[in-house]
């Protein structure tokens, strides 16, 4: 019974990975262009490890959204992975709290060279509203080297995808520092 209902719903839903043009045509064009660029740069996959270094969890909502069916990132070879050792790119959110500073440094060291770091959100880019205080070190680049900063509170999934692309199309980081 459940299988029948699931198949019925899947058929009824169809593919939503390309949003209907009348909904937001500008968005659609950008998504398609991004997907083509990722394929051109890579022809392969990019594996991302996300680290929340002190975020309010707003940025995490948009990372989840990016993994939803509208964006179809796995179909384009972009995948979030469970271990930094499997990752090409570290995506860091939040002002870096002092309680997360060591964990973030260790995660960065665990990503094999060559690697990229993308700082996501106003907090990751500048420290945001929290700034630097007794409990936080502020922006991500005060703790580990950052290749690309994606501002926004939180940045939309498309902005995030653009930031990831900006990082990977700029060439790989050769060495730490």
């Amino acid at each position, binding site marked *: *019974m*459940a299988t029948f*209902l*699931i198949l019925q*719903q*899947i058929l009824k*839903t169809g593919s*939503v990975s390309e949003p209907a043009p009348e*909904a*937001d045509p500008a968005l659609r064009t950008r998504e398609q262009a991004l997907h083509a660029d990722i394929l051109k740069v890579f022809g392969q996959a990019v594996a991302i490890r*996300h*680290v*929340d*270094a*002190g*975020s*309010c*969890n*707003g*940025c*995490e*909502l*948009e*990372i*989840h*959204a990016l*993994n*939803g*069916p*509208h964006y179809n990132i796995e179909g384009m070879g972009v995948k*979030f992975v*469970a*271990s930094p050792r499997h990752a090409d790119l570290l995506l860091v959110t*939040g*002002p870096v*709290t*002092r*309680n*997360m500073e*060591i*964990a973030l440094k260790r*995660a960065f060291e665990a990503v094999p060279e060559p690697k990229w770091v993308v700082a996501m959100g106003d907090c990751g880019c500048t420290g*945001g*509203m*929290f*700034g*630097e*205080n*007794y*409990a*936080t*070190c*502020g922006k991500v680049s*005060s703790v580990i080297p950052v290749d690309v900063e994606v501002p926004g*509170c*939180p940045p*939309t999934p498309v902005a995030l995808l653009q930031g990831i692309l900006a990082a990977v199309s700029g060439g790989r980081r050769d060495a730490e520092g």
Partner: protein
Amino acid sequence: MPKHPDDLALTPQTEGGFVWRSRLEPGRLTAFARIIQDEGGQLLALWGADDRHLGRNFTVHVAFLSSVGLIWTTSELDGDQPAYPDLAHIFPQADRMQRAAFDLLGIRAQDGVDGRAWLRHAAWVEDAFPLRKDFPARAACRSPRPETEPYPFIRVEGEGVHEIAVGPIHAATIEPGHFRFSVIGDRILRLEERLGYTHKGTEKRFEGLDLATGAKLAGRVSGDSHTAFAWAYCMAVETATACSVPDRAIWLRALFLEMERVANHLGDLGFLGNDVALTFGFVQFWRLKEDWMRLSARLFGHRYLFDMLLPGGVATDIDARGKADLDALCKRIAGEVQTLRHIYDEHTGLQDRFANTGIVAPDMAARLGLTGLAGRASSQAWDARVQFPCAPYDRLDVNMALQKSGDVLARAEVRFTEVFESLRLIRLLLEQLPAGALHAPCTQAAGVCEGLGWVEGWRGPVIVAVRIDADGRLDRVHPHDPSWQNWPLVEVGVLGNIVPDFPLINKSFNLSYSGPDL
């Protein structure tokens, strides 16, 4: 004034409201807490403040939930060694709040059973207390400190017992925290949480901010509960300054709060499917959630409705076309969720994983103070929108979702019921939205003033207490996330379950880390 079973004077915070204020000598706190417990009430929040710059001493504040509403007690502590009686032996949920109050202010719960630091890992030295007024607001991040500080987890010993240490960085895209499992084979004998990793000095950051900037920061205590925190903060400020908010603004706030509830519940229902390998559920619910986000962005300029609230009102409006579009989407989503609920009901694999997994029995929920949607899944029949409705909920007749089995299934069922109820409420709010202004000025009160806001967010009751100084700037703000009291129940819910079910159980609570880490 209601007759309360004590000779205590309760002052209503506002006429006809459900928040009561009382000054209480510390020596009477224990007896008062017992009275609250005897009548079936709960402790919702406990925090401290440094009042020495006001010619007083340190104070400890408690928010109790009782049959008359929320009772906010303030007790002034004396001496150079400020202390108050331990409340955790009456309300166990007070334990971590008391430990945090010590880390931040150096006020101690006398005879508290757990003296370990909670929010202070190693970021600042043991004898420094960041929320004291003589602690610099802009203390440098690079001040000297130990590299790490050991945390004595409680060990389970015996043949075949071993530990699994998880976090602070987790395998999935979730917030950081540490879970220490003691297991035999796959079965969980004990789980101990260690949180505080996202402690970013939020309460200190509030000090000295203007009232409008405070609303933005309040909304970022826990981003997924932006409207709940921003509204509770604004309510506190408006109470303190006796600001009268226009009707239309209050109705729009409720609209945003219900939209936030729908967005989070849709996301959670998708993840719950995902965690039992029903990817179909994730894809379907996240398709609906994305449609919801995109309409939110189109109508109000932000996918998560950030910064729509400000003290005195709201910053945005909805026109007739927007109302029609939102109404149509509510109708469509209600239909689609009905279909998906039918599939979840019919799916034997999902039902098998959901039912009898992660049980918090009603008596345990009552003893440990489980609150909000998780509480309602374990027979804890509290919903401020129902029992203590602020405007406009007093006009809406909200139906409470309630389940008694206390398992993953019950928490999913509460979400389903609340999605339908919130969609109904949104359509009612749109239909009956009063005309009028969007905001009124909050004029500065003469001298120091205080207020407390209380909002039923999607996760549970959100409380924000505010003190404004004589210059109209924020002097002390305590935002309280319901995850404070619900986290210890995750430790209870996983007992006897297998480790692979932990992600599912954890997701069924979906608690905030940033909210209580502050």
